[in-house]
């Protein structure tokens, strides 16, 4: 088939218009360097929301997102294989000592719920020491005196507890074990915290893969208890699981509601150091939920090319300002950074050169 001259001419015209649009687009967009983000599976859905909307505003921005896990995100960001590592945990002291140019930049606030499948029980109080007892095998029955003491008036079943934990390395395990370390001296000195814990041998315990696997395991096993990120709150409720109120630093039992998570974040707002590496476990303050954390971008402040540094700065600035709007965060049950933390984050982003 031969193209008619008329068709050719209109084709050329279309190309010219497209070129013109592309040209003005380039002039308007600040960045056209390809960026790669990789890491936390908890942050991954949020990054996708951000990138979609960011690219709608900046057609030339080229950002690839992948979900590989916090550990891989940190490791690859340090090696310079990716531009932005996403992590549920800040960089450890030993890594910062070894790689002083690596920054931990909070992007949003998340929390973790303790969910239970307990037939006949609709509200349950738990505490760090009780959970440490359950996950080390010292507390094995639901009607254990320690649990009964925290739940006056609740008739607890005389049934073996099935503790569910992550079998894959996970930021959720990091936060949960950090919480147990802060609650229990034994746990702090032996098991400590990390993305994989050397789980004590308990007969009947279950290791599940991913947050979805945790949810499925808890739903399928009555008398189980599990730790699941609050992003899964809707699915947890749909599966009929209960959410436990946890004992906070001031001796109150609090649920992971938006207000209680915000209360924890607010209490740490002014004590967050300039490098923003701080645990929000057991934040003080009225109704402050005890298992709250910053979600981090792990970025090297010392970039090879200034154009790349500029592209990273532009995207992270967008994520932590416009990207902190409820329209994005509510979809994954995250909370925005408080103003003082936002200022610290902006100062850290400015360091990327």
């Amino acid at each position: 088939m031969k193209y008619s001259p008329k068709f050719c001419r209109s084709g050329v015209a279309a190309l010219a218009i497209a070129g013109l649009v592309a040209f003005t687009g380039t002039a308007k967009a600040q960045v056209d360097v390809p960026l790669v983000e990789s890491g936390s599976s908890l942050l991954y859905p949020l990054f996708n929301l951000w990138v979609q909307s960011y690219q709608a505003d900046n057609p030339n921005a080229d950002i690839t997102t992948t979900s590989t896990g916090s550990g891989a995100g940190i490791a690859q960001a340090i090696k310079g294989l990716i531009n932005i590592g996403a992590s549920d945990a800040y960089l450890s002291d030993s890594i910062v000592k070894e790689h002083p140019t690596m920054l931990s930049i909070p992007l949003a606030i998340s929390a973790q719920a303790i969910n239970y499948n307990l037939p006949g029980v609709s509200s349950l109080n738990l505490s760090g020491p009780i959970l440490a007892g359950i996950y080390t095998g010292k507390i094995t029955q639901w009607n254990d005196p320690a649990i009964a003491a925290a739940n006056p008036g609740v008739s607890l079943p005389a049934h073996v507890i099935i503790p569910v934990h992550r079998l894959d390395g996970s930021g959720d395990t990091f936060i949960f074990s950090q919480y147990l370390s802060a609650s229990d001296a034994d746990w702090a000195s032996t098991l400590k915290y990390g993305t994989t814990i050397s789980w004590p041998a308990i007969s009947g315990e279950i290791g599940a893969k991913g947050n979805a696997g945790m949810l499925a395991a808890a739903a399928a096993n009555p008398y189980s208890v599990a730790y699941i990120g609050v992003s899964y709150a809707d699915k947890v409720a749909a599966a009929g699981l209960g959410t436990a109120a946890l004992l906070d630093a001031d001796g109150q039992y609090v649920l992971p509601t938006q207000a209680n998570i915000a209360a924890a974040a607010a209490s740490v707002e002014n004590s967050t150091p300039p490098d923003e590496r701080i645990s929000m476990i057991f934040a003080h303050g009225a109704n402050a939920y005890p298992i709250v954390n910053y979600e981090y971008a792990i970025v090297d402040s010392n970039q090879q090319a200034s154009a790349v540094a500029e592209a990273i700065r532009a995207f992270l600035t967008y994520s932590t300002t416009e990207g902190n709007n409820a329209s994005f965060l509510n979809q994954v049950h995250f909370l925005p950074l408080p103003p003082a933390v936002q200022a610290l984050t902006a100062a850290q982003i400015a360091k990327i050169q």
Partner: protein
Amino acid sequence: MMKLRPFRLSVLGLSLLIPAALCAVVLFLLIYSFPAIRFSGFGFLTDINWNFGDFDDDPVMTRGMLVPGGANYGILVFIAGTLLSSFIAIVIAVPLSVGAAIFLSEAVPPKIRPALSMLVELVAVVPSIVFGLWGIWVLIPFIGHYLSPTGNGYGLLAASVVLALMITPIIATTLLDALLQVPKENRESAFALGATHFEVVSKAMMPMVRATLIGGIVLALGRALGETMAVAMVSGGGFNILPTSIFSPISSIASFIVNNLDSAEGDPTNMSVRAIAEVALILFLITLAVNAAAKILSSGAFHVRKRQQ
């Protein structure tokens, strides 16, 4: 002596690429994991405790090497989980697949045999994640409700059943091909001697295809040993504890590697990643041993075909 013509030379080069790639992988694993091998010694295989140690604190000198405090690498639990789940899967799958193959070759009219055997082959191409999901939503609640004394469906039995389903078509199709190749004369002479249909199958046909059956089983065992995703989803992820019953949680080597590599990368001394490389090396050695056994056991696997010619 063969003359090395350009064609022969180029094909030789290409064929050498495959063993070369294999050697490169093994050599890399060996070199990379060498510090971990030195650190753990033989205890790597006999210890049931795996602990990445404390990544946050400064690394400590242990046995002359810089490792995270408290680090200890023992994979007996994962070896036991892998071998037990694969073995039970074979025990479940062999009667199923032998029955299916005999049914297809003997009891089904030749006209509809291709359609039915295709259905069996179809099971072999179902992605393992689909089996894993079926395990989570159907099998585990079933085991938990009706079989398990603790009400927990995750564990060795669930992993074995899922693996058994995945490998049944491998054994069944291998065996079916062999049964269909048994010379007509053998069958008919057995019938002529007055043997019942059952006797023809069990005494005249099965002995002829035994080697193929063993070959198929070992092939299936290789698949079961290396299966990652489906096992990870239903095994219950046993850690630091050897299984005591078929309802105990287990971990397989392959699923342990894929699920913990991410954590290992957080180790500032890198010893955790080297230890995981050593785990991979062990898995490779186990599958190598299985395949070697397959070669020995099934050395006569194709004698049926040869006799036919």
